[in-house]
Structure formats: structure tokens, C-alpha cells
């Protein structure tokens, strides 16, 4: 019986320190893996320099007039003909138009009372169609 009692005392009463490194590395790797840096997403655009005004021939402009209810009125250059469509249809339209005229510029004119999201929808459609020459304006009567 005395022998059994001696054997029990061999258990160390200190906290095992050799695994601290493993714990620290585990924490380190966990945070390295789970950290996601919020990378902003958005539609980028280049603003004109102050006072910069380019003269563009009317036939190279596609007017996209965004109305307060979210519909888009499309006017081509000088023609007074108006075509009404939804923002999502602008993408197909732009692809068609730019195939006919590679110098085309999209003039997005938004009504002052129209929601920002309608402008974003149209800009999104243009960006989806790889449009590069975009001008943002406010619609004046």
C-alpha cells in the first residue's frame, strides 16, 4: 500500500507550459485566417477637371434622362424621338449603339428629385456594358 501512495505523487502540480507556444500559434493563425479587411466596392468614375469643357458633336451623344419614377428616357443626339425603358435595359441598348458608333458618349442626366439608386442602376448598366465615356449631369428643364 505504501508503494501505491508514492506513485501518485509523481503527477506534476504545475500547469504544463510547453504547450503555450502551440496555443499562441493557434490563436495567431486563427486570427490571421479569420481577419477580413473590408475592401470597398463601387462604381468608379473620373470627374472632369474644374473649368474643363469638351465640345462634343451632338451625334456622338446618347442622352439618358432618368425620371423621378426610375424610368429612363433615351434620346439620340439631335433627334427628338424619345424611347422609354427600364434601367436594366440600358446595358443592351448601349452595346447596340456603341457597335454602330465607337465614339459614343453616354450623357446621364438625372432629375433632381429622382433617387440616387436609379442613377446607380443606369451607371451599373453602362459599366456592365463596358462603357468608358460617361458624363453625369443633373436634368434641367
Amino acid at each position: 500500500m505504501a508503494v501505491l501512495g508514492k506513485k501518485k505523487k509523481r503527477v506534476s502540480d504545475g500547469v504544463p507550459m510547453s504547450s503555450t507556444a502551440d496555443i499562441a500559434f493557434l490563436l495567431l493563425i486563427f486570427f490571421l485566417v479569420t481577419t477580413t479587411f473590408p475592401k470597398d466596392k463601387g462604381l468608379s468614375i473620373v470627374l472632369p477637371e474644374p473649368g474643363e469643357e469638351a465640345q462634343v458633336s451632338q451625334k456622338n451623344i446618347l442622352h439618358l434622362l432618368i425620371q423621378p419614377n426610375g424610368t429612363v428616357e433615351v434620346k439620340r443626339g439631335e433627334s427628338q424621338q424619345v424611347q422609354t425603358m427600364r434601367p436594366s435595359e440600358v446595358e443592351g441598348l448601349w452595346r447596340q449603339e456603341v457597335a454602330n458608333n465607337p465614339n459614343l458618349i453616354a450623357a446621364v442626366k438625372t432629375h433632381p428629385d429622382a433617387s440616387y439608386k436609379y442613377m446607380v442602376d443606369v451607371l451599373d448598366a453602362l459599366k456592365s456594358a463596358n462603357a468608358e465615356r460617361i458624363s453625369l449631369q443633373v436634368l434641367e428643364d
Partner: protein
Amino acid sequence: MGMKGGGFQKSSKASEEIPASSLADIAFLLLIFFMVTTVFQADRDRPIEWPQAEAAQKIDEKQKNIMNIWMEREGTVYLNDQPHTMEEITAVVAPLYAASERALVISIRGDQDVPYQYMDQLQTALVNAGVVRVVFATTLEQSMQRARR
């Protein structure tokens, strides 16, 4: 002589193993290094409803060169947690833009329902401040949602 090892004794008493006792120090050092060097964004998020766009792309610029301008539904503008009037924007942004050597990218974070006239005023103010690169911050829209629109 018949000695083992040709009469040579091990000269070095250094252990052949990599010292494992310093691993904890290294790990904690790395941990503290990353804790100290991690920079969180400077301004707090405003409560806005984000517009959605399918063609949204990641802003290809360092975090420190991105400046957020928030616009809430009523057209109030926030810059670095401070509300500003439209007239102040040009005066506030222009020196910051010059200080960044024209590398600054403005991220416009507008509520999706803000009337466009305020957006236009903001753009005019930014043009006057000489800003060139602007991003309309959006969340990514899934194609399925878009089809319903």
C-alpha cells in the same frame, strides 16, 4: 587505442535540437506585432441603405488614400464623423487632396434614396476641390436579384 569515434570526442555540448522554449516568445511577438500594426478605418459607419450594383469593383487604392463621404437620406453630408454643409466640402477636401499629392480617392457612400440633386451638388463641390477619382460605393448585387428588377 580502439576508442569509439577515432579518438575524437564530441567537442560541442550544444544541443542538436532547435530550442523550443522560445517558440512562445516568437508567437507572442508576432501576435503583438499584428495587433499594433493593424489599422482600423478612421470614421464610423453612418446608417445608410446601400445602393446595389452588379458591376461594382474593388477600389484599387490603399486604405489610407480612400476618403469616405457619407450622404444620408435627407442630404446631410458627413466627413470624418463630422456633419458638413455643401458649401464647406470644397474648402475641407481641397487641402486634404493636395496633401495626399492628388492620390486621394473619394468614396461617395450615399443612401440609395437620397434625391439626386444633393449628389449633383456634392459632385460639383468635389470638382471645385480638384478631385478627379471618385467611386460611388455600392454593395454587390447578385444577378438573380437584378433579373427581378
